C-alpha cells in the first residue's frame, strides 16, 4: 500500500462506496472555504490581489498565504488568523461521511486507527537538503521515500549519507558510475522542475525486479529488469507526489525514462548527490535541479 488519502483507503477496503466518497468530498468542497476566498471575505486582500497570487502560484510552489506575504498583500498575523479560522471550521472527510450517514462513529474510529497504522510505515521523516537549490521539499521527500521503498518494495536496507552539491562539470565519482547498470530519471514538477535520478548495479536491479514481479528475475531479460527499476522509480516519485499533495503542494510527475549517463552540473543546473550505503551492490541517487527559477532542465 502506498501513500493514500483517507477516502481512497476507505473505498479500497469497501467501507464506503465510490459514490459515497464523491458525495462526501463535494460536501467538503462546499463547506471548506479556500484560503484566498477567506482572505477576500475578511477584507485582508482584494479580489484582484487574490488573482495575482493565484497566477504567481503557477510558477512558484508556495502556499497562498506565504506568497501573499512575499508579495506584500498580507501580514504574517493576517495569514495566521486565516489559518486558525480554516483549522477551526474545517470539515474533515470522516466528519463529512458521518454527517451524510455513510459511516458510523465506531467504524470511523476503527478505520482511522487502521489507516494511521498503515500510513505510519511511510510517514514523513525529514532528510536534510543542501542549501541553494530550488525544490528542496521535493528532494527531501524523494530521499525519504527512496529509503522506505527500498525496504518496502526491494526488501533492502539502504543508509543515506549527507547530500552535497557536485562541483561544476564533475560527475561525482566516475569510476562508480560505470558500475551502475541501470540509470533512470523521473521529471518532477512542483513549481520548479527537479529530476530524480537513480542508478543501480545489476545485482540490485535484479533484486528489485525479483521483488516486484514476485519471482526470481535472474534469468529474465535485461529489458524486463530495467523496466522494473523504472517502475520502482515511478512508485517512489508517485508516492512523493501523493505525500506533497497532502501537504498542499501541487506536484506532477512524468513517466520514468532510462538514461545513458549521469548528468553533470553546469551553468544553470546543479547536481545534488546522496551517498548511499548498501550491504552489497551499488546505489546512487542524484537530483538535477536549478540554480535559478526559469531555466530549463
Amino acid at each position, binding site marked *: *500500500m*502506498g*501513500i*493514500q*488519502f483517507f*477516502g*481512497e483507503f476507505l*473505498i*479500497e*477496503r*469497501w467501507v464506503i462506496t*465510490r459514490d459515497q*466518497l*464523491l458525495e462526501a*468530498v463535494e460536501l467538503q468542497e462546499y463547506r471548506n472555504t479556500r484560503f484566498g476566498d477567506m482572505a477576500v471575505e475578511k477584507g485582508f486582500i482584494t479580489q484582484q490581489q487574490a488573482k495575482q497570487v493565484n497566477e504567481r502560484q503557477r510558477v512558484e510552489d508556495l502556499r497562498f498565504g506565504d506568497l501573499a506575504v512575499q508579495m506584500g498583500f498580507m501580514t504574517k498575523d493576517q495569514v495566521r488568523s486565516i489559518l486558525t479560522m480554516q483549522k477551526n471550521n474545517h470539515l474533515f472527510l470522516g466528519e463529512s461521511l458521518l454527517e451524510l450517514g455513510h459511516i458510523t462513529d465506531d467504524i470511523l474510529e476503527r478505520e482511522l486507527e487502521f489507516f494511521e497504522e498503515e500510513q505510519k510505515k511511510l510517514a514523513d521523516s525529514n532528510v536534510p537538503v543542501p542549501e541553494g537549490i530550488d525544490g528542496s521539499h521535493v528532494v527531501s521527500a524523494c530521499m525519504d521515500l527512496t529509503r522506505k*521503498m527500498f525496504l*518496502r*518494495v526491494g526488501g533492502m536496507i539502504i543508509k543515506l549519507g549527507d547530500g552535497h552539491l557536485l562541483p561544476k562539470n564533475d560527475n561525482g565519482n566516475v569510476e562508480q558510475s560505470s558500475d551502475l547498470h541501470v540509470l533512470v530519471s523521473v521529471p518532477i514538477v512542483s513549481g520548479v522542475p527537479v529530476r530524480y535520478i537513480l542508478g543501480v548495479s545489476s545485482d540490485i536491479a535484479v533484486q528489485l*525486479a525479483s521483488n*516486484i*514481479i*514476485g*519471482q526470481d528475475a535472474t534469468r529474465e531479460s535485461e*529489458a*524486463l529488469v530495467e*523496466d*522494473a527499476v*523504472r*517502475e520502482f522509480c*515511478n*512508485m517512489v*516519485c*508517485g*508516492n512523493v*507526489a*501523493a505525500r506533497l*499533495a*497532502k501537504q498542499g503542494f501541487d506536484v506532477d*510527475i512524468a*513517466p520514468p525514462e532510462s538514461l545513458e549517463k549521469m548528468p553533470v552540473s553546469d551553468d544553470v543546473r546543479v547536481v545534488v548527490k546522496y551517498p548511499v550505503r548498501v550491504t552489497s551492490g551499488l546505489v546512487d541517487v542524484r537530483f538535477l535541479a536549478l540554480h535559478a527559477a526559469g531555466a530549463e532542465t
Partner: protein
Amino acid sequence: MKHKVLIVDDSAALARQLQNVLAEMDEYEVVGSAADGAQAIKMYKTLNPDVVLMDIVMPMMDGLQSLRTILKLDASAKVVMISSLGGVGSKVEEALRLGAQNVISKPFDKEQIYSVLKKIFESDSRQ
C-alpha cells in the same frame, strides 16, 4: 467459470506481477495484457473481459482516456485503476468520477488485489 481479466500497464514488470498474483487465484484467468490505453480498448472489444486492471499514467493514451472510452462502449464495464499517484482531488478522483470501480495504490500487496476483485464480484452477484 473463471472471471476473465484484462491487464493494462505500460510496465512489463508490473503486468507480470499482476499475472503472477492472479495465477495464484483459481477464480481468475488473465485473457490479455495491453501496454497502453489504445491497445486496451481494442483488446476490450475482442476479449470482452469481466474486469480490467488498468494503470493511470501511461504513454500514448493514458488510463483515464481509455477508461472513458471503455465505459462508452460498455457502461457496465468493471475497471479497477492502479496508481502510485495517491490523492483524492487528482487523477484518482477523476477516475472514480468517470466510473472506475476502485483504485489500488502502488506498491500493492496481493491481498489488496484479492480483496478488491472479490468485493467487485460479490456486489455483482447481489444485484
